[in-house]
């Protein structure tokens, strides 16, 4: 008759078959087997299969003892590994060095660009440097050459005018217009 706790004993019986149970559990299992015919049959089958399993274990070990040591081959491979790691020791620095060089190059280029982008003082005095002014680029230098549109642009008065900020003047013109125009008197 199948007992509720037979399932638990089945696992213990499997361990008992390979002598993997502690003494206390073993006694408990043995007592159960005496009283349970199904577990007793199960135990007998387990014994048979376990005995077959254990009897089949011998040959592989015998075979392994007949073979020569693998150390000679392993030693050869180890030398290769060591050689590779020695060569790889400086190669290991290669990415870091490359990265540092790249960073340095970026810094140098960036600083160059920044230096170029700051407008020299003489350029601020050039009045004719506007969108309409033709600019020619020579191949020898990256510096843009400003070509005057006409001879008038070289007139000192215009240069003088260019230095003056026209915003206050525009504002004064507007005030003048208001005072003289139709809104005069308001």
């Amino acid at each position: 008759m199948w007992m509720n706790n037979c399932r638990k004993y089945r696992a213990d019986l499997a361990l008992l078959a390979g002598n993997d149970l502690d003494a206390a559990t073993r006694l408990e299992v043995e007592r159960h087997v005496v009283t349970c015919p199904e577990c007793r049959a199960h135990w007998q089958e387990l014994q048979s299969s376990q005995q077959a399993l254990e009897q089949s274990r011998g040959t592989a070990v015998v075979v392994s003892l007949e073979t020569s040591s693998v150390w000679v081959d392993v030693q050869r491979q180890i030398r290769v590994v060591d050689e590779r790691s020695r060569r790889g020791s400086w190669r290991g620095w290669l990415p870091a060095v490359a990265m540092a060089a790249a960073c340095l190059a970026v810094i140098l280029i960036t600083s160059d660009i920044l230096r170029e982008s700051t407008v020299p003082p003489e350029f601020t005095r050039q009045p004719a440097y506007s969108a309409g002014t033709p600019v020619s680029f020579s191949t020898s230098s990256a510096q843009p050459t400003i070509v005057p549109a006409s001879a008038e642009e070289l007139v000192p008065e215009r240069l003088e005018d260019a230095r003056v900020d026209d915003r206050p003047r525009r504002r004064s013109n507007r005030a003048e217009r208001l005072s003289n125009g139709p809104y005069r008197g308001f």
Partner: protein
Amino acid sequence: MARPHTMSEIDTQSLESPPPGGGVSDARLVEAVRKGDHDAFGELVKRYEGRLMSVLLRFVRDRELARDLAQETFLRVYERIEQFDPSRRFGPWLFRIGVNLGLDYMRKRKRRLWPLLFSESRSETPPDPSSSDPRQQLDLEQEVRHVLEGIPEHYRTVLVLRDLENFSTSEIAAILNRKEATIRWRLAEARTKFKQIWTRRQAERKPGDQVFPLPGSEESDHDVDE
């Protein structure tokens, strides 16, 4: 009623350090290897190669292949020696690498290899001279391998390591990186599954062809004390 635990105890010694002969412990050898001592590694190789090849042979059933895998195992151990935790035992760590290599290989070549194994098994495993009838021993081994084939891998691995290679459950737990309770549960399941397939195959055979007689047909030393 039960067999003594002597085999397990003897084999357990091979994974412990220092060895029975009183030589240098595994931990010291590992330390020396870390300092670049090749001879120390050679000592470790010689200490474990037989057992490792035996275990690998259980999985691949081919001597040359087992040898190649053993070499690969030792090479990986050498390359990863810095990762080894010296507070733990070296043996299980080495066998974990070896067993994983063996299992990986089997998984990759599973479909092709299993039929090959059984067809070549007679030439690869010479009969045990101590056996009274070598043919019967070969039949038994072949039958056991067929039955093992029918067991899922994670049960089969535990069964092979415990019942064919005599590792203790704690060692298997260390090798497979599982809790010992898990290994004991798997072992019980594996033995039960093995028993089911074995009994069914024995019942399917003709009575005179039984590779191994069922209990009751001869006296057994495994009987439960009544």
